[in-house]
């Protein structure tokens, strides 16, 4: 017999360092949903997602766009009467979905996060993420043109440098990173 370990616990475990978030304490009051500025763009509202986690609907939760639509504004977190750190919960879901490679098709979020991390580990700095074209080729041509125009306008107006600087001790930083996550040798 498989040991029953509910999804609410799996996700709760991912947040234990921040708070012992009692996802199961949710009252289903809907304050989070009423607060969320991105709710219109979510497959399921934050309240519903919490309900689904508690109902162990792991697949449905992971295949929704809800948690990837979270802007991390923490408005739900500070208002939740049950003290659930909902924004952190959305981060936990993002991580879990990345690690298990289980997320809704066509989302930009996972690709963006990957490119962003790659950029930091390679240079120590991040480049204006909105204009970092690394993640764009997979998406529409018009989007690329649009971003390129915006970017060149910004470069010419002196608002933006063309390339990010590398930090001096980048090799050390990469070794620091490598002690936390066992990476291969960098090129």
């Amino acid at each position, binding site marked *: 017999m498989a040991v029953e370990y509910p999804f609410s616990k799996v996700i709760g475990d991912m947040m234990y*360092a*921040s708070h012992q978030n009692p996802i199961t304490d949710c009252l289903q009051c809907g304050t989070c949903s009423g607060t969320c*500025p*991105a709710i*219109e*763009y979510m497959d399921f509202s934050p309240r519903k997602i919490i309900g689904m986690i508690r109902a162990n609907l792991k697949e449905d939760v992971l295949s929704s766009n809800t948690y*990837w*639509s979270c*802007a*991390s*504004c*923490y*408005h739900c*977190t*500070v208002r939740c009467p049950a003290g659930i*750190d909902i*924004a952190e919960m959305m*981060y936990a879901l*993002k*991580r879990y979905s*990345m690690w298990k490679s289980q997320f809704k098709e066509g*989302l*930009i*979020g*996972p690709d*963006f*996060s*990957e490119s*962003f*991390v790659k950029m*930091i580990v390679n240079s*120590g*700095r*991040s*480049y*204006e*993420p*909105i204009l970092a074209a690394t*993640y764009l080729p997979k998406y529409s041509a018009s989007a690329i043109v649009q971003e390129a125009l*915006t970017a060149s306008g*910004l470069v010419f*107006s*002196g*608002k*933006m*440098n063309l390339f*990010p*600087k590398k*930090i*001096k*001790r980048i090799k*050390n*930083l990469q*070794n*620091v*990173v*490598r*002690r*936390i*996550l066992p990476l291969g040798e960098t090129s």
Partner: protein
Amino acid sequence: MKQYAYYPGCSLESLGKSYHLSTLEVAARLGIEFKELEDWNCCGATAYFPVDELLAYTLSARNLAIAEKTGLKDFVAPCSACFKNAYTTNKYLNSDPDLAEHINYALEEDNLHVAGTMQVRHLIEVFVEDIGLDAIKEKVTYPLNNLKVAPYYGCQLVRPRKGNENVENPRYFEELLSALGAEPIEFESKTRCCGGSLIVTNRAAALDMVEKLLQDAVNSHAQIIATTCPMCTVNLEVYQSQVNREFHTNYSIPIVYFTQLMGTSFGCTPKRLGINKEIIPRALEKSQVEAV
């Protein structure tokens, strides 16, 4: 002269250059010195946490460790996302010894050690709390009379909650603006999100959020929106024209950093405040002329 360890963050090196310039200019006028950390790295922004939260803490911890080496007490970040990341990292370093041990093991690779002893502050807190409104008022030579400013706090400056502060209706930004002679409007949306990195990952959602903010500011008769974060500025300023296209609106509301307003009221030249670098041009000078 009071000194602070200053962590500009990546945005202030490119799109937020005017924030950087105006911060240093205003600090000089107020007799404080921001000492930039040597060889700092990116804080991980909001995009690192979905991949690996431990690594995100480690990135911020390296900056905190570098700051601790200076012997200064305060770690100051002008970007709200950098501020939030450094703040939470510092908090967990103090409350979770296992995390601190593991991160310090990693930091050995850069001959660093983090103790979690810095006071992590946002730039605006330093001005309001340490310098104080009275001292700021004394420096004002060109009061921003009748300039109606929307004080936009955004998200990560005020949230998540850090103590017992009022996260629903903070007032210090309004008070600072009043000290400059400006007229802060009652801005209902002042702590609503600008969309953050959704501008990349979910453009439609972010533009909608930006539009709501612009609409509220205009309906509340703001002439200008002042921000405390380079990401908020990018979303409100750079994407304003795209909002106009998508929503068939014609917003043309200038977005400035609060430090640019401070500098202007102190009589600093626009150039030294990076005012010529705005996307929606001449806005501040224009409103200044109107104000005078």
